[in-house]
């Protein structure tokens, strides 16, 4: 994010150089991030990347070893979780089993000593919001997983929190319920205009729901951007491989002034010279005339997998595997010789982080 962005954007929550160690393990290494007012941000990454720890630091459930948290400019770093007024939804529902749905939703309001009539009214309104008004008197164990998570959402939102924090809220649910709730949470968030952070390891979930995605690995932020930005311009090899599929190719030494593949030069638009490049399978084009043009490489078909809407062909070019996905691959069979073109504009430089 450039300095000019920071001025134009309406920064709500700001994390500065957050560090957190668990014993000898560094869970977060000097993480900085700005979250805009009213936006839906996803922390995305594999397990152990620090995304949950970062969310817990924001919630106040973990104290950072270094760095500070600012909410609209005021320092939140040492404020205990109970005074932050953030709504948190956990992966494991965590509805209080000894209380009814209504009492669960009322809990945060009672903690804030709201008068009883207001509590009742607010509980009713929240349960209507998550379409569970008729379940108010039930106990959590009488509800399905999806219903429980909706109650948890209502409970978190009831005290009019400043932010909503969701810790893998959907990962314990069935696929179908998960789909429905994705949309429901997103609608609710837009309706209330509440700044929201969600932790997930599911890239589809992040891409479908988030305004901005924060991709994390090994305790650092790899890249922050919209789904489109991350897919079309991954900043690191990790992001390129984590968001969608990508072919990673090692280039040979100099071939006519530029690195190449199998003795043929590879031209690219962005003028990069990195030895590791990525190319999305759908960007690889099949060339009918095997001899024509720049960036055309010929290899042997290794595998053909029919995926319904697409066909994935794996090709062996000079000892490297390249997968391509096209709608129409009629007549392509294993063992056949096939020429493909790698468009210069579709090549992603992946050096810098490559190992």
């Amino acid at each position, binding site marked *: 994010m450039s300095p000019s962005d920071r001025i134009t954007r309406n920064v709500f929550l700001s994390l500065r150089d957050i560090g957190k160690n668990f014993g000898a393990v560094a869970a977060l290494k000097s993480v900085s991030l700005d979250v805009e007012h009213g936006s839906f941000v996803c922390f995305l990454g594999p397990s152990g990347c620090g995304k949950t720890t970062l969310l817990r630091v924001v919630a106040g459930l973990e104290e950072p070893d270094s760095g500070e948290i600012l909410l609209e400019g005021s320092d939140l770093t040492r404020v205990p979780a109970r005074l932050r007024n953030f709504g948190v939804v956990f992966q494991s529902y965590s509805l*209080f089993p000894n209380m009814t749905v209504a009492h669960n939703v009322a809990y945060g309001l009672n903690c804030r000593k709201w008068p009883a009539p207001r509590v009742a009214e607010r509980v009713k309104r929240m349960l209507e919001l998550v379409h569970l008004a008729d379940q108010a008197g039930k106990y959590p164990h009488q509800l399905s997983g999806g219903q429980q998570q909706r109650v948890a959402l209502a409970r978190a939102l009831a005290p009019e929190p400043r932010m909503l*924090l969701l810790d893998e809220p959907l990962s314990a649910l069935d696929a179908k319920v998960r789909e429905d709730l994705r949309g429901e949470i997103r609608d609710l968030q837009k309706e209330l205009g509440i700044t929201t952070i969600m932790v997930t390891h599911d890239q589809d979930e992040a891409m479908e729901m988030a305004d901005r995605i924060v991709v994390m690995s090994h305790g650092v932020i790899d890249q922050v951007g919209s789904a489109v930005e991350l897919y079309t311009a991954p900043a690191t090899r990790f992001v390129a491989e984590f968001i969608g599929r990508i072919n990673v190719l090692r280039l040979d030494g100099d071939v006519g002034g530029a690195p190449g593949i199998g003795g043929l030069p590879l031209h690219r638009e962005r003028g990069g010279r990195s030895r590791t490049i990525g190319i999305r399978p759908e960007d690889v084009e099949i060339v009918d005339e095997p001899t024509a043009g720049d960036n055309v490489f010929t290899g042997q078909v290794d595998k053909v997998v029919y995926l319904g809407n697409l066909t994935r062909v794996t090709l062996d070019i000079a000892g490297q595997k390249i997968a391509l996905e096209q709608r129409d691959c009629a007549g392509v069979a294993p063992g056949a010789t096939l020429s493909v073109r790698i468009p210069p504009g579709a090549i992603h430089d992946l050096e810098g982080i490559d190992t």
Partner: protein
Amino acid sequence: MNQIVATARRFAPSLDGDKLIVAAFAIIVAVPLFVFVVLPLASILKRSFATAEGYGLGNYVQYFGDARFVGIVGNTLLVAACATAITIVLAYGFAYAMHRSAMPFKRTLGLVALVPLFAPSLVQALGVLFLLGRNGIINRTFDLGIDIYGFWGIVVADVFYSFPHAYLILSAALAVADARLYESGRTLGASDLRLFFTVTLPSTKYGLMSAIFIVFTIVITDFGNPMVIGGDYDVLATEIYNQVSGQANFEMGAVIGMVLLVPAAIAVAVEKWVTRRQYAVIGAHSQPLSVRPDRRFDRIMFGYALVICIAILAVVGIVFFASFVRLWPYNMSLSLRHYAFDVQNGMQPLWTSIYVSLLAAVIGIIFVTGAAYVIHKIRSRWAGVLYFMSILPAAVPGMVLGLGYILAFNDPDNPVYMIYGTLLILAICNVYHYHAQGFLIATTSVKQVSGTFDEASTTLGAGFLRTMRSITLPIIWPSVISVGVFFFVRSMVTLSAVIFLITPSTQLAAVSVLLLDDAGNQNQAAAFSVCIMLVVVAVLVLFQLLLRACGVRGESLIR
């Protein structure tokens, strides 16, 4: 919001009200742990090095140069090794029958296996004597001339005594299994015997090691059984009692205490190390093993389990029977005269025991669940210190703790002296003697709550006290009850720690059994034992019914 932040900033960073409450709680549980666990142990350590010429190894040199003392150490280890081997084999077989066969009456058989838990340790010895002793039923009937006093007597009695402990651990190990391993093994052509040695045994090895160390500790530290059935065969636990109570030889007592402490501590440390490794056996994708009926195998297993249960019931049953016999073995007619309790202090010790046990239950509930709860709340390294003190008593044999109490508190300069010789110190001694087990029961349930429920409550704006009142206690109360019942039961049947602390006016029921037996009054000893067991069973049944009435399932009170 700014107002909230401003309010918070006034407390921040270190004076947050919740942190103060947690710190206060931590001190409230930590101080007694230090006073009633660490201090007594330190006193023993100090006394064992105290000689006429100042501190040194004099006492150790003296006693380890004494052939009789070395012999007693050898005796103790031999008895422990032998009883452990027998108990483990028998209990493994029993647990195997319970979990890996389709034999009938599992529930009943499983309950019978736990019966020895409800009796003071010397009751097994008493029962074995009524069966196999000089005047026992078997010798009287068949005139075999078996002499059970001594080595074998202790071994047999301790096998009965430690059997349920081994069974509970092995049962937990054998209850879970990954069916996929058995199916793969079978499809590869393995026989049942090969499967047992290549799958079952390796997957239960941690439970097995755990059980071995627990039983070994129980046997070397057991006092009641060797006292009743040991005859001339001295072991460390009886020797420490004789040296301290009989001859006021505190130096030797302290040396024996240290000697007993070492193997017990090693056993506990290894056991903790082993259990930490146990979790990997079953993964998220494991398939539970379902037992297939096999008529022949099930019959053999049923027969085996039946024999064990009959033996256990025989030992306890004969004590019941003897309590109604007019004068064993001369006049075998039945009578209720032994329940008159017309000697010694009459019924008083039983009431005293019940009172002390209730007191221990209350103290245990407050301080032990308190310790378990507060440890999960503090995030500094003090949590580790508190945890260590909480489970340290597992490594301290009762006799050693009791002696430590004498050495530390029988001193007018120590503030605890005020309660020395009262019922309160007996209750406290019981709580800290069994602190580790009670603490682990409480920790299990606190862990379930402290994860997300606690955090959910906190993020919704609740403080420590509200979370405890509205979330934690309403969820964990069955476990709290269970901790209380645990301390009640242990206090009713324990003998070893309190034996050093009782006075004529604070005599306990289990001690009465010992004294009555010692005075040759076996029938009354039996009657008193029966009363203890009835109280224990009544309390267990009462609370199990209470829990069930409140809709709580799956909370076992038998530990």
